[in-house]
Each structure stands twice: as C-alpha cells, then as structure tokens.
C-alpha cells in the first residue's frame, strides 16, 4: 500500500471478506423470518429451492462486497489538508474531511478482523455536519501511519517523517487498570446501564420467542404460562436475590469485556487509551480537545478508594444518539486519587486549586420537594380517603417521603460551584457524587436567569454552555453570579486561548 496516502487507494484486498461478511449479515438480518419459515415448512423436494436461494444470497453479498471494495477509495490531500473518501455502489458519495476538524481517530479490531489480520479505522469529526467516516479494512502498519498523518496534519516535514513511526511505540503506560480494580468497578458502578441492558434483553427475548411461535402458528400463550409458573414457583424474595445476582454478574462481565487490560499511555503529547477483551479498542486523543473533565465517586467506591473519570469532547452541539455520545465521552474506570491527579495534570496542565465555593440558596429544596414528594403523596392521600384498601400502604408512603426528603437534602448539600482563576468545578449528585471541571476559557456562551419572585431575595440561576454540554448552577446568590459572569467575560474576551 502506498505509504504516503497521497494517491487514491483502496483498502486491503482481504477487506472484500469483511465487506462480504457485512453484506451477508445485513441480508440475513433482513430475511431471517422468511428463511426460518422456509426451513420449517418446506419438504425435501423444495429443499433444493432453498439451497439455491441461500447460494444466491451468498453470491449477491460477495458481489456487493467486491463492488464495495472496488468503489471505496481514499486519499490524503496534503495541499488542501483534506482527507477524501469516495464510495457507494449505486450512488457515488464523496466525503471530504478537513484535517483540523478531526477530533479523534480510533483503530479497532473485531473478531472477524482479528482472524484475517486487519483493522478498521474510524474518524470522528467535530464538524457541525457530524459526518462519520470509517475504513473497514486496513493493515496494522498503514492504520497507525494514517492515524499519525491524520492527527499530526500541520504541513510540516519534520520529526515524524524521520522518526519512523512504526505501530504503537511501546511507551510505559501511565495507568494500567488491574483485574481486581475492574472487579470493584463492576460491583459498584453503572447499575442503571446494566439494568437497562437486562430489561432490554428480557423484552427482546420474550418478543422474539413469541414472534417465532407466531410464525409457526403455535403461539398459545406458552411463554406467558411458563413465566407465570416460574414466578409462582419461586418466592418473590428469592426472585429478587436472583435478579440482583444476575445484575451484578452482568455488570462485572460487561465491565471486563469493555475495559479489560485498560491502559493509558502518552504518545506525542496525546493520550493513547487501549482496552477491551474480545476486540481491542485504541483511542488517541489530544488533551486540549477535552472540554469537560469529570470524575465521580459513590460511597462504596470511596471506601474501596477509587473513582471513575470521564473526558468529554466537543459534540458539535447536536442532539446525539446514545452511541455517538458514548464515543465522544471517554471513560477511565477505576483510578485511585494519585492516578486521578496524574491524569488531571496531564489533561489540564495542572491540578485545579481549591477555589472560592458558591452554595445554593435553601430555595433549591422547594420545587423538588413539591413535585416529587408533596404531589405524589397528596394524590395517594386523596385516593386513599376514597378507597379503603389503599390505607394499608401508608408505611410505604411515609418511607417514600422520608427517603425523598433525605435525597433532596443531600442533592442540595452537594450542589456546589467552585471557581478559581482558570477553572470552574461543579459538584453534584446524590449517590454518585460527580465533579465536572472546565477551563473558564472553554465556555462558549453564558446564560443567567431569574424569576420575578426571586428578585427580592437576590436568587438566580446560571448556565454555562460548553461544546461538551451545559454546566448548571441553580439558586445561587444573583449578585455573586453576575460578578462571576463579568469576570468570566473579561477572561474570555481579553484572552486569546483557543477552546479547541
């Protein structure tokens, strides 16, 4: 492969296999039900027809894969500082990416790619158009070379050319996360995500089995009856224990699959992160493109002495799908205080000093208490006064009220804004206490607002818009907020620091 990427070129020839594989996967996904039906309904004679159809699908995907491979070319236009991709079987598509809009370049390897020995390379852009670009088949050396080229795009012919940038230079990792720490992480974080995953899986399984039975005209509610039997057979408490166990197990497995052998190392001023059990995920990012640096810790994690770190990058201000959001947020699961400080040092240039702390007014409590506690409990009391049976649930209502008050009060005591010369740190949370750190020069715009009835008590709100999301400070002293805003505006407008 031409190593300077200046001429239009194709991907690795073995890429045909990957593209065929992808096509096959898509076709099968589209036709799975008819195929299953055919297997079920056809007799021996019609089997031939079936085999022919399968053969045709294979042939078509091979053809499409080949055409895809032929039509996909890419090159680097050094003069214009652009990376250009031509692709498309039926309609020609030309994608042009300006190199300075590139935010990060990821090199990944799926299982199939591992078998063939190639990598895929994914380019993330910060452009407002949010184009996504990936090369599906590229050999290891070219992948790293291209990555180097894309990220060090300044028209210079220095250092990198002579340095012989062979694959990932074996630098001593800054941070390695051991299996033990991952186990702790799995035990203590992201319950919500695992729960969502489990529920999604359960629903999908239930739905698919029903669909399948329906397709074979044999659905008489067996699934439901099996489920019902299962539930009555177990006592409810046992079921809860089981669910908790499955939840924790899922959590731990998920953490291991995603973050196995997590390493961070420094490479030419950028951070190289690598992790993953089955498919290894490499991400290179330059610290100055990080917009919000956040770390969070809950009670268990504090006892076990570790925290989670998230680096948020610009997401072009567009509403993004969960997946995209996930990509622009880089997570470092489980680092201890010293490691956190080292990482902050690397990303921010220094550890944020303890700044002046601003606390919200007690009116912070009013709305959450009213909407989350007074209204629901009020509705319960109203209903209970009409329906006798509901009275027996009153301990639950009391527990809900007390717990609610406690949670809202904690969220009030944790809602803090700390401001120092260059940094703004926002703390929040109830169980997971998070700290979001931004440079004041990474603010894009500022909004302040006040309700008329708060004028006399001098209470107002502040929103700081950054390229990676909003920072909110609610129910602050409005005079102080205005003073802060004037100070930040002064910094933003007199300084010339780039936000990206």
């Amino acid at each position, binding site marked *: 492969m031409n190593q300077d990427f200046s001429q239009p070129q194709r991907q690795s020839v073995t890429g045909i296999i990957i593209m065929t594989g992808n096509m096959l996967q898509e076709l099968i996904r589209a036709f799975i039900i008819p195929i299953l039906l055919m297997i079920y309904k056809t007799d021996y004679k019609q089997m031939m027809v079936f085999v022919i159809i399968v053969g045709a699908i294979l042939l078509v995907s091979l053809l499409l894969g080949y055409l895809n491979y032929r039509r996909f070319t890419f090159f680097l236009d050094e003069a214009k500082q652009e990376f250009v991709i031509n692709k498309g079987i039926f309609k020609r598509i030309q994608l042009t990416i300006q190199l300075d809009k590139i935010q990060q370049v990821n090199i990944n390897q799926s299982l199939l790619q591992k078998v063939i020995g190639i990598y895929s390379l994914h380019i993330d852009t910060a452009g*407002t158009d949010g184009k996504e670009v990936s090369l599906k088949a590229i050999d290891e050396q070219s992948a790293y070379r291209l990555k180097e080229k894309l990220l060090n795009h*300044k028209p210079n012919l220095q250092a990198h050319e002579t340095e012989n940038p062979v694959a990932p230079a074996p630098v001593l990792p800054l941070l390695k996360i051991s299996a033990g720490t991952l186990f702790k992480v799995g035990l203590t974080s992201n319950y919500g995500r695992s729960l969502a995953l489990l529920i999604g899986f359960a629903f999908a399984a239930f739905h698919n089995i029903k669909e399948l039975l329906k397709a074979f005209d044999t659905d008489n509610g067996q699934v439901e009856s099996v489920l019902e039997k299962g539930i009555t057979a177990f006592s409810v408490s046992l079921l809860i224990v089981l669910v908790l166990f499955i939840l924790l197990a899922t959590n731990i497995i998920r953490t291991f699959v995603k973050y196995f052998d997590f390493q961070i190392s420094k490479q030419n001023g950028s951070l190289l992160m690598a992790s993953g059990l089955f498919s290894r995920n490499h991400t290179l990012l330059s610290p100055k493109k990080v917009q919000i640096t956040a770390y969070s810790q809950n009670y268990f994690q504090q006892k076990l002495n570790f925290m989670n770190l998230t680096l948020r990058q*610009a*997401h*072009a*201000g*567009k*509403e993004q799908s969960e997946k995209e959001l996930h990509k622009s947020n880089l997570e470092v699961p489980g680092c201890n205080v010293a490691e956190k400080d080292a990482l902050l040092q690397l990303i921010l240039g220094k550890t944020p000093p303890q700044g002046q702390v601003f606390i919200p007014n007690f009116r912070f409590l009013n709305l959450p208490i009213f909407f989350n506690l007074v209204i629901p409990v009020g509705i319960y009391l109203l209903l209970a006064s009409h329906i006798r049976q509901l009275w027996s649930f009153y301990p639950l209502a009391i527990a809900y009220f007390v717990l609610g008050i406690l949670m809202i009060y904690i969220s009030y005591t944790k809602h803090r804004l700390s401001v120092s010369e260059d940094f703004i740190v926002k703390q929040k949370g109830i169980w997971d206490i998070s700290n979001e750190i931004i440079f004041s020069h990474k*603010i*894009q*715009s*500022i*909004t*302040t*607002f*006040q*309700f*008329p009835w708060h004028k006399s008590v001098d209470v107002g709100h502040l*929103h700081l*818009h*950054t*390229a990676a*999301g*909003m920072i909110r400070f609610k129910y602050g002293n409005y005079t102080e907020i*205005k*003073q802060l*805003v*004037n*100070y930040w*505006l*002064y910094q*933003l*407008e007199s*300084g*010339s620091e*780039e*936000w*990206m």
Partner: protein
Amino acid sequence: MLHFANETIDLDQLPKYEETKLNAPHASYWRVILINLLICLLLLSGALAMLFFLNQEIRPYLVPMGIAYLLVWILLFVLYRASFKKRGFALREKDIMYKSGIIAETTTIIPLNRIQHVALEEGLFSRMYGLATLQLFTAGGQSGHMHIAGIPIAKARVIKEALVKRLDLIENPAIEAQ
C-alpha cells in the same frame, strides 16, 4: 498564560453586563407577536369549539369554561406584553447580549470570539413589517444559540456584516500565527 499571571483584577472595576443599556426590538414587532399569538389561540379555540359541539355532556359547563378561557387569553397578553417591554439586545465591543423571557428574565451573552456563524432569518409575518431575526450560533449547542427577533432588516444586515467581519478578524490572525 504569562501575561496573565501578574495582573490584579478589581472585580468591581470590570464592565458590568447587567448595567448595559439594551436596544429594544422594533415597536412593530409587537404586532408580529400578536399575530402569532392570535393564530395559536384561534387554532385552540377551534379545537375547543369542536369538543363542545361533539360532546353533549360538557355543554352545561360552557359558561364557566368560557370565562376561564378568556382569562387565559388576558393573562397571555399581559405576560407577552410585559416580556416584550423587557426584551432587548446589546452589541458591545467584545460580546453580544440578549435579554428575553416570558416569565423568567433570561440574559444570554456570547463573546464575539466564540460565535461560529451568523444567519439572518426573515419570517413570513416579520417580513411584512420589514423585520428580521438575527441568529447567532456557537459550539455550545442548541441552548447556547441566540435568536434576536424584531430587528429592522437593514439594521440586522449591518450587524450581521459587522459580526462576520469581526469573525474574520478573529480567525485570520489565528491562522497566520500558526
């Protein structure tokens, strides 16, 4: 960084954004707001009338509901009028500011060196009165954008040109410096 370190800043000496004199939107923009509000309310009235026509049971409540509905109209007009009075924008040397809000008083400030691009929108009704909306976009996303409505078209064009030129000024030295 270096030129920053030794400066003592007297926070009280900094220019105060909250004391900036604002330019009110053009007087005829009130009519545009009224037209929009009326269209909304007429559609709602139509829907409610249909409901009363189709549903026999709620007919007896026609009078009290009608009064409540009228009160909502009046309240909306008062709120919009008050918010119109408070509305305003200011173009300062280094930033642009816009104050608005129906109930809450919201002030948004965008430093000129953080503007990504500028657009001019002429709505159907606004155009009838020779008004336009100036839209400023930042990298801060939906909520960080600024839409300044009710500026006379000629003036809006001038501001837009000025901002665009200003953007070039900011961007060019940066490019040369690289």
